[in-house]
């Protein structure tokens, strides 16, 4: 069972998002509440167009909610308006992203892809390189540290992408179909890895997924339908 005494990392209150006005108005999210705790790994499920990505974008401070409140890592960042001026810095410090297709920068090798995030956060080149190498070794792709993304297998590339997402020790990791490009075995390995990292770093992981093979790896499953978190399936484990 979940320990609700753990720190709340992501808290969303009465968040709504609509596009357009009047007859053309489309409600992507309606009056949505969500709390995700440290160490939790949660999945957002739902059909296409249900609002999963919109919710992920709002938590990632990429798009504005139409109303509501968003707190990240104990800091209220949105209360009917953004309370932080520099949202990119906020993302850099608090949020790591894992994409369906790894989205590594093709002109940087594995180490540099990870080190870039660290350097953007203010680490020196040497510090960033050392930490990147360490992370890649931890994720068991240290032997591919100098390889360019085009030469990495799907699993290796996704591990490098995870290393990049974890580089600045973010409290929130947002994953968009993180195992979609992987076979069942590798998908399981990646999910186990994410669970381990979430526990170790006291981070929470929120993933959008359609991959039924990995649903047993999540602490909670949320079903989004027509912009509502209408069915909390609960602790899946």
């Amino acid at each position, binding site marked *: 069972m979940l320990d609700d005494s753990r720190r709340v990392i992501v808290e969303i209150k009465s968040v709504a998002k609509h596009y357009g006005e009047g007859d053309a108005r489309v409600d992507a999210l309606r009056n949505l509440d969500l709390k995700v705790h440290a160490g939790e790994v949660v999945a957002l499920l739902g059909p*296409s*167009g249900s609002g*999963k*990505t*919109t919710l*992920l*974008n709002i938590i*990632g401070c*990429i*798009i504005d909610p139409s109303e509501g409140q968003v707190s990240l890592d104990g800091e209220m960042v949105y209360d009917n308006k953004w309370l932080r001026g520099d949202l*990119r*810095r906020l*993302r*850099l*410090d608090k949020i790591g*992203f894992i*994409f*369906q297709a790894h*989205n590594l*920068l*093709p*002109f*940087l090798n594995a180490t*540099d892809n990870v*080190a*870039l*995030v660290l*350097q*953007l*956060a203010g680490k020196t*080149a040497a510090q*960033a390189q050392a930490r990147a190498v360490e992370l890649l070794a931890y994720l068991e792709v240290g032997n591919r540290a100098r390889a*360019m993304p085009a030469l990495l297998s799907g699993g290796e590339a996704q591990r490098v992408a995870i290393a*990049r997402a974890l580089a600045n020790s973010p409290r929130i990791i*947002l994953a*968009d*179909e993180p195992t979609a490009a992987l076979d069942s075995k590798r998908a399981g390995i990646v999910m186990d890895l994410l669970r381990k990292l979430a526990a170790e770093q006291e981070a929470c992981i929120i993933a959008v997924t359609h991959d039924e093979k990995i649903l047993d790896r999540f602490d909670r499953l949320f079903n989004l339908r027509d912009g509502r978190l209408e069915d909390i399936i609960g602790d899946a484990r």
Partner: protein
Amino acid sequence: MNLAFRDVRHNLFRFLLTCLGLGLLMTVVLAMMGIYNGLVADALNIVKAPQADLWVVEAHTQGPFAEASKIPNDTRDAVARLYGVTQAGSITYQTVEAAFEGATLRLYVIGYERGRPGGPQTITEGRGLQASHFEMVADSKTGLTPGETLMLGRNRFAVVGLVRDTMNSGGDPAVFLTLADAQVLQTQLAPPAARVQAARGGTAPGGATVAALIARLDPSVDPRSVAQTVRQWKHLSALTQAEQEDILIQSVVDKARKQIGLFLGILLTVSAVVIALIIYTMTMEKLKQIATLKLIGAPDRVIIGLIVQQSVALGAVGLTLGLGLILLVKDYFPRRVLLEPVNALALTGIILVVCVLASGLGVRAALKVDPATELGG
């Protein structure tokens, strides 16, 4: 970590190929600049070569470079006696064609009086004219070398020396003959024509006339005052060196100069558009990566740096290639391609501005990229 450099290194072949294309475009721009300069310099060279202070020409004419001018040969003695004149020499100009080694040479023949103003200034190979007849000093662009001979009219001339960069505004290389030989060449008829002329009781046309008279003045004397004195003789006119140069630039080479100048302007505009297009396309191809950069928290300055640095690098490498290429091939142009350091500097400045402005389009597109596009629904 320099993202621009890493991206270039990753796509090095493509980047170099783009630079090569741009470099070829820069070569054409530089060639046009060089031809433009060469046209003006060549036109002025022929006027500057005699180091004249005053040009005495036929009344109501603009001098031998703009229109036909004929004055009596003995004018020189009269002008030489004017106050302030230290040296004077008669000179003729004409364009002829001569056969040489199976090809036709088009030559600008300058006849001058040995020991007087009007002859070649710097002999780069061989010597100047020493004999009274049948010797010539030729511009190296003629392809002639000392020791070779060439038929001009009915006489064979030996090349005794070479000069450089001496040609008329049409680009025809000059040859220097003695005044007497040049006058004969100008007036001598082919044998059949001479026989017809004799049968009709006529004499050889022309007689002792020259195209102009060159005078050098005492430095303390104002050329304008001497020119004014000459103009009082109603059959003559006089132009100072500055007036002669102005006439040449304004009337003789003006159209060609404007034509090339306009073409150069169009070429620069085309280059600017091409550079802008290349940089815009390069940016468009990177929109996904730019969205990723935004999503992971890269500030705008990192993204702007990526685009502007690549744009400037593209311009710099393209310009360097263009400069290298034009320096390699400029001597193979039929007309002189004269490149001054100021041209390279000016083009560097223009390309830098164009690259920065062109990258502005890319930057604008990059800053509009929505990072949300990276998280698919």
